């Protein structure tokens, strides 16, 4: 280290902050803690352990129930969508077959004499 660097080191020696530095710091920390909103989980953390343990089964039950409900809803939605597709398919097939029947009837009717057509109509 050169003499200049030594002078620099001497010039940059550590200094103490004001005497009440620590006191003011802790006052600010206290102030900050008092102002900070207590979060819901912090409140729960302050509950007695007995209360928390007593509530644990209820929480588990709620979780299980809501999980089951969600699963049921999901299953119901899948079933519903499948049923809808089946229904639309069934209606489409029904419609196609009825149309084909109509076409066949028309073909048969056009081949017959008018009086025979009347007979068929009467018969049907």
């Amino acid at each position: 280290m050169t003499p200049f660097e030594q002078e620099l080191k001497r010039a940059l020696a550590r200094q103490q902050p004001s005497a009440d530095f620590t006191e003011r710091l802790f006052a600010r920390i206290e102030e900050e803690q008092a102002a900070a909103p207590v979060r819901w989980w912090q409140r729960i953390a302050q509950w007695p352990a007995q209360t928390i343990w007593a509530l644990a089964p209820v929480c588990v039950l709620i979780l299980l129930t809501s999980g089951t409900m969600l699963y049921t809803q999901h299953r119901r939605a899948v079933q519903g969508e499948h049923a809808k597709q089946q229904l639309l398919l069934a209606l489409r097939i029904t419609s196609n077959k009825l149309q084909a029947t109509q076409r066949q009837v028309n073909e048969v009717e056009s081949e017959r004499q008018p009086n025979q057509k009347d007979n068929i109509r009467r018969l049907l």
Partner: protein
Amino acid sequence: MTQSAGLVAEAILPTFTEAVELHKSMVFSIAWHFLRDRSRAEELSQDVFLELHRRWGSLRSAEHLVFWLRKVTGNRAIDMIRSRKVRPETSLDAAAEPTTLEQMHDSLLASYLERMVATLPEKQRLAIVMRYQEDLEPDEIARILGMNVSTVKTNIARALSLLQAKTVGRLQPNTARRLNEMPGETGK
């Protein structure tokens, strides 16, 4: 089971109160030498310790604590300079004007150097403070400032060269001669 005192001191994280007592002068001095404004340096130091209090749970060791304090103080000092447009009272160039030169007594040298450091560019200033206040090696400074070691060395060398050039001319001949005895060997 015996352990050396040195090992124990390095490994164990002090309590928050102990940490404040142990390191408040370090934090304050970094801020003071960087800002050259006592009230702002105190404000910054308080903010650093408040932040430390919030993050206390994430600190792993005494070394980590010191590293964190130096890094955060340095960053916050730069932020403060940039956000508040805090500028040193005297610029290095203005102070170096030959017409304003006065012969300086040795006892005033430290104070003068202190003021001159505060006029250096941000990165150079921080590197100089870490190097000569905290007595850190360039690689440690590089880790704290998030720079390359070579950049740190360059910053220190440039800052020293500037400071030396501006200071020596203002000194009494004997002092100037003494300071010029061993040029070079800087920033290593």
